[in-house]
């Protein structure tokens, strides 16, 4: 079976900085792939490349067997790859329902159908009580759910989540983790950038680690967590040989 996502040799530089270097990944249909690495490792740049917001210098991205390099973000969304933003971007003056409806309209051009689908998705993410609330007035945790709902409404097969746990307290994080698990269980593959290690370990089937734009390690969560190169990347060389707890 063809992988849902196949990335090979993806590279992008900005002036003197090589932000992403020869990145190669692949993802199966239902899996959750965690993408971790220190700040500045190139994770969000990778997301921008995958979702069409940036063009790669070279490399290939295949989504469901089809090359998506050079396609615009909206075209890529229509193919089934949808991304969220690290700093959430709700439509502040629109209601929660209208926000999510924009996402739904991409699949359901008729306003009533889109509205119906939007309501469903909003209930799914647990924002049902805030349907007509202006998005600008939501709490951060609620905005994250909104961002998720909007993306879900586009009926993606692959969802790119960019630090969706950032800024949330432990209770909120637990709730979002549960939500992401439910989403994945419903058949959506997820590529997840995350700094919260517990969340990543709990959610991911596999983890890939980036450092200085390169993938340094990839594998099962526990194997990755104990990998010396990962420890070196995050904590520095001295810790590689520190006794584990």
């Amino acid at each position, binding site marked *: 079976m063809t992988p849902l996502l196949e990335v090979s040799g993806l590279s992008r530089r900005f002036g003197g900085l090589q932000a992403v270097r020869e990145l190669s990944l692949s993802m199966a249909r239902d899996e959750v792939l965690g993408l971790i690495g220190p700040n500045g490792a190139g994770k969000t740049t990778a997301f921008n490349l995958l979702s069409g917001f940036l063009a790669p210098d070279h490399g290939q991205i295949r989504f469901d067997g089809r090359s998506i390099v050079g396609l615009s*973000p*909206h075209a890529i969304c229509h193919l089934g790859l949808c991304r969220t933003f690290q700093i959430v971007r709700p439509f502040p*003056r629109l209601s929660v329902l*209208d926000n999510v409806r*924009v996402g739904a*309209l991409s699949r359901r051009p008729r*306003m009533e159908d889109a509205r119906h689908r939007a309501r469903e998705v909003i209930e799914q993410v647990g924002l049902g009580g805030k349907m007509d609330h202006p998005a600008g007035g939501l709490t951060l945790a609620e905005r994250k759910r909104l961002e998720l709902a*909007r993306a879900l409404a*586009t009926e993606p097969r692959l969802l790119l989540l960019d630090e969706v746990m950032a800024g949330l307290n432990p209770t909120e994080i637990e709730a979002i983790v549960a939500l992401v698990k439910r989403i994945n269980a419903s058949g959506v593959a997820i590529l997840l950038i995350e700094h919260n290690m517990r969340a990543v370990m709990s959610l991911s089937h596999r983890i890939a680690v980036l450092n200085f734009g390169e993938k340094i390690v990839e594998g099962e969560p526990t194997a990755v967590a104990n990998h010396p190169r990962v420890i070196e990347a995050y904590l520095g060389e001295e810790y590689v040989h520190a006794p584990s707890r």
Partner: protein
Amino acid sequence: MKWLGAAALAVLLALPAVLSSYAVTVFIFIFFYAFLGQAWNIVGGYAGQLSAGHAAFVGVGAYAAALLSAQVGLTPWIGMLVGGVLAAALGTVVGYLGFRFGLRGFYFVLLTVAFAEVCRIVALNTDAVGGALGYYITFTGNPRQFQFQDNRVYYYVALGLMLVATAVVAAIERRRFGAYLIAIREDESACEALGVNTFRYKMLAMVVSSFLTGVGGTFYAFYLFSLQPNAVFGIPLSVEIVIRPIVGGAGTVLGPILGSFILSPLAEASRVYFGQGGWSGVHLIAYGILLIAVVLFLPQGAYPALRRLWARPAAR
């Protein structure tokens, strides 16, 4: 709300029977500028792309229809469509350049102003269309030539135009097109990520808006009978177009109409009381102050504020 609208419409339809010719003229301007403002509303209010050069489209439509009527004998009833199409062509160019090259905010405003000014200067220097002296249409009063003896017919035509534009905007608002435009105004990048082809929808808004504005140009030509490049392409006209939706409520269906009902009488009153000559700029000072006040205190315009006031007692 519906019965209120119907009642208002009935009143407007009946008014000419009781109004003086002067009052009818005032209403004609209210309706006409509301029409232009409504057309602008599509791209400036809903899509959030501030154009300060919409006069260019009025001018193109006006000159096109006038020239076709005088040189070729084409009735302006068809000429207005031609004018609209030509204006839409210009709109396509401006929109394409602006949106393809990623011009937003201040840069886009400048682009639209630059295009309008270029049109103005070209018209000023082209003797074939009258140059600086302007282009004049002979009055024949022939309805086939979009000219009417009775002021009141113009009243109904202007009212009709305003209603058509409003219907177009209402239709847009109800559909996906409108929902997308509003979202684009809020955050373009987020829209792209959600599958919205922002370029296509902005272009569509620009084309519809400029087409309607061009049609309005024909009315302008055959109501005023003289086309002066400085008047018909100039910044003052663009200001008149923009200020009504802004004050009344950009991105709402009734905003431009409300704005016109507020501003046209204001302009007329200041013109009457302060006379001509050096004082003719007074109404523009009022415009400036109103614009500032709206931005500071009522950024969404008068209509949304009124709607909130209306809703509050009902909600309790």
